[in-house]
Each structure stands twice: as structure tokens, then as C-alpha cells.
């Protein structure tokens, strides 16, 4: 089937402002948006820039705004969005070129929450055991692929890029509620700061945007309640 692609293009070296450019691509309804992008870049316009790597929804490279909502190009089927497909870069981070944004700030936010296991106990000779119930507490937030779909869907983040953002809070949640971890209190303090979890206004764009179906807002609310019960 023939689809019309309207792609927001920007080359910081030559363009003053981003502008839309139209393409057409002949693709199957069961193809992904990524296939349509490849059809354009490989056969029509080699200057079109976008990121992708795994093409299977695992590496998190190709988050973009597809028809005005954040989606992974490799997980969105043509038939879900055809025949007119508008593609724009995710919002809030500086555009490097076309659909590619600079995610340096995103990974800074991520590093801020200590996204690794902290446990100062002497190294055990066997695994650190955990009950299935305790494991279940943070199961949802282990699924994050750091694609930035959630953070860049958040109006609070667009208005204030200092906000730590849903993705970093999800990554913090994964360790805060891990019974083997010992730095939960420290992470809660970080998220209790001015640019932390309280900036969230429960808009739910992040939950709708997550390609891994993580209940992002739920995780943020868990964190807010944990901060509260810690302070009380």
C-alpha cells in the first residue's frame, strides 16, 4: 500500500528552522514505520537521518512522535497509522538532525538516581535470595529500555527540562523496591528534591507512551507515597 510520510526535517548546519518534507513509500500494512523510513532513506533520500539498531523494540533507539504520539518506529505497524503518517522527533531534547535528538541530558537524569544495586553487606557465598512476592514489587519497572518515550511525552518536562522525568523515576523505582538494595532512602531523597517526583502532575502521557507497557505513572505514585511514608 502507498503511504504518505510527512517528516519534520532539520539540519542545524544549513536550516534556520525545522520544516516538513513529504515522501511516499510503498509498504505492506504489516510492515513497521521503520520499514517505511528505510524505504525512503535507501531508495529516495539518503540524507534523511533517524536512529535504529535492533529493530525489535529492545534497544530503544527509534522513539519518535508518530502522528503526534511517542512510539517506537520498529514497533508501530503501518496499518495502525496509515495512510498519512507524520513523523517528528521526540520533544524536549535538542534536535541533532531530523528525527535524532541529543539524549545526553536524558542519561544524566538516569545516572542521577543511582540505577544500580547498592549493597554494602559482605559478599555472600550464594545468591542474595528474594521471595517471589518481593520480586514482584518491582517487576514492572525492570522492563525499561531507556527509549525516552515517557520523559519526552511529559508536558511538565517540555516546560522544565530540569525535571528528572518519568524514565529516571522508573529506574529508581526498580531499585528502591528491591529488597536486596540498601540505597532506597538515598534515592528517595534525590526524588524528594525540587526537580524530583513531585513535579509529576499525573498526566499519564508517559503511561500511554511506554512501548513496554510499563505503568509509569503508577511507579511514580509508588515513589511519592514511599517518600511520604518515609517522612512521616
Amino acid at each position, binding site marked *: 500500500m502507498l503511504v504518505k510520510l510527512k517528516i519534520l526535517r532539520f539540519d542545524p548546519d544549513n536550516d534556520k528552522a525545522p520544516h516538513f518534507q513529504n515522501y511516499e513509500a510503498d509498504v505492506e500494512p504489516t510492515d513497521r514505520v521503520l520499514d517505511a523510513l528505510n524505504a525512503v532513506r535507501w531508495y529516495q533520500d539518503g540524507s534523511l537521518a533517524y536512529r535504529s539498531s535492533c529493530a525489535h523494540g529492545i534497544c530503544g533507539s527509534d522513539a519518535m*512522535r508518530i*502522528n*503526534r*504520539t511517542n512510539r517506537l518506529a520498529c514497533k508501530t505497524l503501518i496499518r495502525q497509522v496509515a495512510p498519512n503518517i507524520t513523523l517528528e522527533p521526540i*520533544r524536549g531534547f535538542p534536535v541533532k538532525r531530523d528525527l535524532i535528538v541529543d539524549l545526553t541530558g536524558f542519561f544524566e537524569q538516569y545516572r542521577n538516581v543511582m540505577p544500580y544495586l547498592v549493597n554494602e553487606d559482605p559478599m555472600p557465598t550464594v545468591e542474595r535470595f528474594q521471595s517471589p512476592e518481593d520480586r514482584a514489587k518491582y517487576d514492572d519497572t525492570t522492563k525499561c529500555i531507556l527509549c525516552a518515550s515517557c520523559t519526552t*511525552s511529559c*508536558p511538565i518536562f517540555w516546560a522544565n527540562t530540569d525535571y528528572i522525568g518519568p524514565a529516571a523515576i522508573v529506574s529508581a523505582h526498580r531499585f528502591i523496591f528491591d529488597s536486596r538494595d540498601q540505597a532506597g532512602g538515598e534515592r528517595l531523597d534525590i526524588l524528594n528534591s525540587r526537580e524530583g517526583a513531585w513535579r509529576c*502532575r*499525573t*498526566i*499519564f*502521557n508517559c*503511561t*500511554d507512551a511506554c512501548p513496554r507497557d510499563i*505503568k509509569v*505513572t*503508577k511507579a511514580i*505514585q*509508588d515513589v*511519592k*507515597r514511599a517518600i511520604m511514608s518515609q517522612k512521616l
Partner: protein
Amino acid sequence: MVYRGSEGMWAWVAHRCAGVAVLLFVFVHVADTALIGWGPKYYNLFVKLYSGPAFRLFEIFLAAALLFHALNGVRIMIIDFWEGGTDIQKPLFYGVMALFLVVFIPGAYIMLSPIVRSMLGG
């Protein structure tokens, strides 16, 4: 429109707008109440303005803003304080809208009918 959000985003946008509208009214209201300091002449003039039909329309709008802000505020509190709240935020939103209409439509009718009647010379 830069982003197509769903119920949660629209609830937030409407909540913000309603909140700002109510806040602006509070400012106006503080100003008009302060007019009493310059004597009854000015104060009465202003209050008379309030009883006109144009202002009644404004009051209906104000009632809508207050009502939505209050109802959605309860929705937000449920989402904030009850663990299951995030899972039912969409049904909650529709509940807010339904309650809003149930209260607002009769309310607006009651507020509007006297002016309509007086304008028709009743």
C-alpha cells in the same frame, strides 16, 4: 497541537485552565471588595455591574470552572492516595465528566432562566 494525549492530558489541561480562571476571578473579587474603601458610591456601582446579564454568563462560566476543578481534584486525590487509583484514572475521568454534567446542566438552567425571562420582558 504538538502532542496527542488522552484523557489524563485533557483532564490536566482543563484542570489548569479552570484553576487559573478561578484565581483570576479571586483577584477581581478582591479588587471589587476593596472598592468599599472609597465609599459606597463606587462599590455599589461595581456590584450593580455584577447583576447584569453579561456578568451572569461569566458567573456560569465561573461555576463550571469551579465545579470541574473540584471534581477533578477529587479524582487526583484518589490517584495520589489510593494505590489502585492510577489503574482506573480513565473511568474516574468519565465519572468526573458525568457528575459535572449532572450538576452543571440544572445549575446553569437555574442561573440562566431569570435573565432570559427578564430579557424577554417577563
